[in-house]
């Protein structure tokens, strides 16, 4: 099943996951230094959680991984981000191409309101001219199944996406991201606008997606990080220049039980933040 889908999109059958390496990354909004000197390894087929207090630059860091940071006026990035071995910030690299390989799910569900459920799922293929030679319905069904939404929407694929509940809309957005078969999926607080039951469903989904994708998730919910992630990175604001820095990174269990840095310990034990 996977092999079939992969062969439809890319000639090579992909069996191993894709990793990312952030090397001395700095991100700015005009004069504001938002992320400072972050170096971080994202292992293939793992869930990496980025945690930290509000305003510590974790969402900004995430948006640097698919070159979405730079679409904001005045925003720019310095440093390297490798996808496998290729620097996505190398001169001549097409950000549009990068975003086809590194998908993203946002904080608030953002289905395209004028499109139906199935059109939303297929938008990434259709609007990039890659739908040719595919059976749209099969592709959509697979993506919706992978996003654990198929059973809830299979009888109303042509209904407007906005008719779905918030939790369903978020899983639709995940299906939309899966349909283009990215290497990596970024999730920016994907449950913060959802109720507990919808949150649980998305978390279960993340656990399943780990087998096929590499996932980076930003969350302000430490319990969520502990539940869903394999590795955790803790960021906070550096007091000297108000820029977000990476304090510590490691296996999630170790980060929560035996953190090396005092600041991490204070944060995960709820002493601040």
């Amino acid at each position, binding site marked *: 099943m996977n092999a079939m889908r992969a062969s439809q999109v890319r000639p090579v059958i992909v069996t191993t996951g894709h990793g990312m390496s952030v090397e001395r990354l700095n991100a700015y909004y005009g004069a504001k230094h938002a992320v400072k000197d972050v170096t971080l390894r994202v292992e293939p087929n793992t869930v990496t959680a980025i945690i930290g207090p509000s305003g510590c630059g974790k969402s900004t860091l995430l948006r640097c991984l698919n070159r*979405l940071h730079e*679409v904001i006026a005045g925003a720019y990035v310095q440093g390297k981000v490798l996808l496998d071995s290729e620097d996505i910030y190398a001169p001549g690299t097409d950000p549009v191409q990068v975003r*086809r390989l590194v998908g993203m799910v946002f904080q608030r569900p*953002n289905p395209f309101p*004028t*499109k139906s459920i199935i059109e939303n799922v297929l938008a990434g293929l259709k*609007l*990039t001219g890659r739908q040719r030679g595919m059976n749209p319905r099969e592709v959509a069904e697979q993506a919706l199944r992978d996003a654990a939404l198929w059973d809830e929407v299979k009888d109303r694929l042509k209904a407007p996406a906005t008719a779905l509940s918030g939790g369903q809309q978020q899983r639709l957005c995940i299906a939309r991201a899966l349909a283009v078969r990215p290497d990596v999926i970024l999730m920016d607080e994907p449950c913060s606008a959802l109720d507990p039951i919808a949150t649980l469903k998305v978390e279960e989904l993340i656990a399943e997606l780990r087998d096929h994708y590499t996932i980076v998730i930003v969350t302000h919910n430490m319990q969520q990080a502990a539940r869903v992630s394999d590795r955790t990175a803790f960021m906070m604001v550096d007091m000297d220049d108000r820029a977000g820095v990476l304090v510590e990174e490691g296996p999630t269990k170790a980060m929560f039980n035996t953190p090396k840095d005092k600041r991490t310990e204070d944060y995960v034990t709820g002493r601040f933040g």
Partner: protein
Amino acid sequence: MGIAAASSPRTLGGARFRRRKAVDRLMAGAMILSAIIVLIPLFAVGAYVVQQGWPALIGHFPSILTEQSPAGGQLIEGLKGTLILIGLACVVGLPIGVMSGLYLAEYGRNRFGDVVRFTADVMAGLPSIVAGIVAYSVLVLTTKHFSAYAGGLALGLLMFPTVTRSTEAVVRLVPDALREGGLALGISRWRTIVSIVMPAALSGIITGIILGVARVAGETAPLIFTVLGNNNGFIGLTQPVPALSLQIFQAVASPVDPTQDYPVAYAGVMLLFLLVVVLNLLARLVAARRAVARG
């Protein structure tokens, strides 16, 4: 200083209160009166048009449409001409208007955008006869022919600033979350704008277009020396073309036989009035549907 600075005796009510209340009422009254004065001309014009035009149009319907007025020709031909001119105006005005509006909303947060915005605003206040002169010099003098094209160009010039600014306004309202959703799928920026942002703003864009069309539907001055008018009816795009507004102008300003020309003119006024009212209602309807879709 501070709180103790209140030098007047502390009284709640009294002469000051009565005076303030009186001034308050006076100002509110002046504003209400002005608002009523705004309505008077509209209702007066509307009432007069309907009072004179309705019997003229309906009393002899549909023969009034094909009656040959000596000064203006047949109304049905004028209606045809007006619709054709609106169509040509759309061909000129819509692509420029919609695309420049998209530009301003999506890319225009810079110096050049400010210049375009300012120019569009000036163009929106352009005297319509100036647009007529432009079309006259560009198309009539060069081809030595009055034509529907020249009229379409003049009306298109008058129409696009409205469309530009209204398109910009509604496209700006589309949340950035949709743009980012498109970009994050690896969809190029122009494709995101055309296939995701524009559909989300479509009803608003259409509302702006309809209002732009309504603005030019009754224009007379720019048509006088671009399409000229044609008592023989519509005979081709490269020929002088009849239009409702021109027929009214000719039948009233220089009637050949008032007993024939005036009733036709009033019926024409009624037709034009209906056309503009219907267009405006249509715009409201589309806008209301958007509100429902969003709600």
